[in-house]
């Protein structure tokens, strides 16, 4: 069993530290149990069950450090991995930014572990997928999808007496539904800590409805449009912005750098409807309660009513700048309102509903200009109603500019990034002057 209890992890970590002869030593232990099932053309294509357990030892002499890893746990192997990290540390150059390890800390227990998710079996996954495939067969569509569950734990102990442990569960599901002619496509994605919240049947019905609605897409001119981004589209776009690192900003290589030097901390950078924070104890999106530097993760506001409220400081950069260290976001929650996507459509005179974005890449890190495309359901809205599906667009837009052009925010919902599979709490949003630069023939 790769999921060790707090006590089991503690026993191994103590033993490993007992082999250390270095000035300082930190040992990390992590494991995961999980499985996946992938399907396409209404049948299973691949599936697997994965179990991992690994140990990483970082030894330090003065300011010279090195890390060695291993996945065997007999005494001889544990002694070997410690010795190897010590030998490598002696060879390493001095790290002028090395920070001494932290002593004992108190970390509250996280709330991200759900027993029923940890108990998922291959049959649970197959049954969930069977429901999804049946929806598509009934709708004369072809399903391609993926379901993956993971139970993981992380533990760390160091020679100064720090010990931390966290355990969590996660399940993600995504499905693309297409017709045989290749002229229609829909998508849905879900992510939860708790399997009981996952309904693959309803999610697939939504994807199927998007696919059926996307048939016969018309070409309209690219340009600036008011867009309604559904949460899965907004999440992928904004994921590229959630780096609030003070050092990069201080050093002049971030969108949060100020011309002439310094950072944009305290500046109003976005519309006042925008508030973004992290909170390890959000019941919809729990996260770990500590990070690898041995810092406690607490509720932190990054953007407050459009103003840059906080930047994250590593322990080294905080010391250099004479401020308190502040760990980066453990999760991301964006505040919104109560409106549904349908409400946002009703209040739109002329615009485009975007179900999903695709292949987003950075064009200019200075302005966070991103490019990517719409897909799996793009619709023209007029006078509060969806009029017809439209062909997909390529966009060139910055999330910072986009969050300056917020018309309205809906009710936040848990959504996953279609690239990183990380979960976020993000509202659907209505944005004016979103820049579409060309048309795509892709369906």
């Amino acid at each position, binding site marked *: 069993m790769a999921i060790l209890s707090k006590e089991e992890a503690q026993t191994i970590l103590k033993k490993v530290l007992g082999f250390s002869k270095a000035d300082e030593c930190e040992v990390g232990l992590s494991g995961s149990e999980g499985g996946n099932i992938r399907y396409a053309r*209404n049948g299973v294509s691949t599936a697997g*069950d994965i179990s991992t357990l690994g140990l990483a030892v970082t030894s330090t002499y003065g300011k010279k450090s090195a890390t060695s890893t291993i996945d065997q746990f007999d005494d001889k192997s544990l002694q070997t991995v410690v010795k190897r990290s010590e030998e490598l540390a002696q060879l390493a150059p001095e790290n002028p930014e090395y920070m001494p390890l932290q002593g004992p800390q108190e970390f509250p227990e996280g709330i991200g572990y759900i027993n029923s998710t940890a108990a998922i079996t291959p049959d649970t996954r197959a049954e969930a997928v069977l429901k999804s495939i049946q929806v598509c067969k009934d709708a004369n569509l072809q399903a391609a999808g993926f379901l993956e569950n993971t139970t993981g734990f992380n533990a760390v102990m160091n020679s100064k007496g720090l010990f931390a442990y966290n355990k969590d569960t996660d399940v993600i599901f995504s499905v693309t539904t297409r017709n045989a002619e290749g002229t229609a496509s829909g998508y849905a994605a879900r992510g939860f800590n708790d399997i009981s919240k996952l309904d693959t049947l309803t999610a697939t019905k939504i994807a199927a409805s998007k696919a059926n609605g996307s048939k016969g897409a018309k070409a309209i001119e690219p340009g600036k449009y008011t867009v309604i981004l559904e949460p899965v589209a907004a999440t992928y776009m904004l994921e590229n912005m959630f780096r609030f690192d003070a050092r990069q900003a201080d050093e002049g290589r971030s969108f949060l750098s100020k011309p002439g030097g310094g950072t944009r901390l305290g500046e109003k950078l976005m519309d006042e409807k925008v508030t973004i924070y992290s909170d390890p104890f959000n019941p919809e999106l729990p996260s770990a309660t500590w990070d690898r530097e041995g810092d406690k993760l607490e509720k932190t506001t990054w953007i407050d009513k459009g103003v840059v409220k906080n930047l994250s400081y590593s322990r080294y950069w905080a010391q250099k700048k004479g401020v308190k260290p502040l760990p980066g976001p453990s999760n991301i929650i964006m505040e919104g309102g109560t409106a549904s996507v349908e409400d946002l459509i009703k209040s739109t005179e002329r615009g485009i509903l975007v179900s999903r974005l695709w292949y987003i890449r950075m064009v200019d890190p200075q302005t966070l200009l991103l490019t990517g*495309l719409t897909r799996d359901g793009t619709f023209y809205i007029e006078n509060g109603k969806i009029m017809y599906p439209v062909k997909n667009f390529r966009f060139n837009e910055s999330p910072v500019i986009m969050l300056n052009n917020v018309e309205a925010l809906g009710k936040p919902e848990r959504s996953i990034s279609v690239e990183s599979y990380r979960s976020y709490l993000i509202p659907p949003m209505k944005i004016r002057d979103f820049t579409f630069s060309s048309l795509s023939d892709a369906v």
Partner: protein
Amino acid sequence: MTKEDVAKTAERAVAVAKANAKIQAEPVQLAPQKGYGEVSWKTPIEINAFEVPIKDKTDLLLSVNAAAKAGGASFINSIFFAVNEQKYFASTDGSYIDQDIHRIFPSFVVTKIDAASGKFQSRKSLSSPMGMGYEYLNARPQDKVSGIVTRYKNRYDMLEDVKAATAEANQKIKAKTVEPGKYDLILDPSHLWLTIHESVGHPTELDRVLGYEANYAGTSFLTLDKWESKKFQFGSKLVNVVADKTQPGSLGAVGYDDEGVKCKKWDLISDGVLVNYQAIRDQAHIIGLKESQGCCYAQSWNDVQFQRMANVSLQPGKTKLSVDDMIKNTEKGIYIIGDGSFSIDQQRYNFQFGGQTFYEIKNGKIAGMLNDVAYQANTREFWNSCAAIADESDYRLGGAFNDGKGQPSQSNAVSHGSATTRFNGVNVINTARKI
């Protein structure tokens, strides 16, 4: 690892297979494969990177960093990355295959910051990831391609390149912003490899064509009817593209794939026409093949093997043509070196690419550096606008270790060769914004 662990792992695999059997849609049809007995293959290297002392590698990187700082760089990040994969494959077909695979990728990024204006610009190394040993870092005069900046063929001079990169990062801060519009693009192999990868390599993968990647990497506009017609004009008549898992020095070169099939070379695009796909054992029958094309790959022992891209390369021009002559014959163009931002739709029609450095061409001459350049095109229109390809003497490899596909996602290492190529009348946009 104990016998009990192995048995437990097999039991879990059986449980997964049994659970999924009830939703199996169609039976698997594997192309027959003869057993090779006990065979081995090794990347033909001269110097094993893992036998070079760590000190030599750190000294190289620190000298690269020092050169960048001496040239006025604000930041420099240099990396030495090497892989030695020792892979053993056994099958009931009777193959016992032992492979010793070496790959290498030295790289850096130089960043220049202009605090007063708040601008920053970076220039990446012009190195390529290669299926080679440490000899890749021993550049010889014949490996250097002269021009507006030195580029490299088969071997790489990291110290020389970082000096050039630092000067170019400084230049990029002051370069003029591009006027959007139609330009003839002259694309260096250090740039073109990525365009080939995205717009030719991916759409010719048969699993995408069939819909197996619909939920993640996407499908393909190169549907079976286009291949069956035998006259789908993918590109101009100059365009010849091959898939090749045997090319020396390439990332994808191995002796046998991960289904125990001997690797080979085959045509994908001939005289501009789509002639074939990339297929593995369970797909071969779909396109009438009697055997797999040998491009099955798993990134690790604990990942499932599936169809992955072979090295896919544009063949050089058949008549003598230098880059200088290509520039001389261009009235209004942009010469692009190095790869940058990249994005393409899920069926591989519409793409947008950036680069590392951009040079304006006016009336046959380089007129200076440009900034904020990206080009957008439709794959088929773009490859049909291919108007000139330099000859074999300019042919070079580019590539990537991180070609992503599959759920859970896996990375594939793949190279793409080309000579400098001109595409006429491509749409260029300006990417400058203010926040």
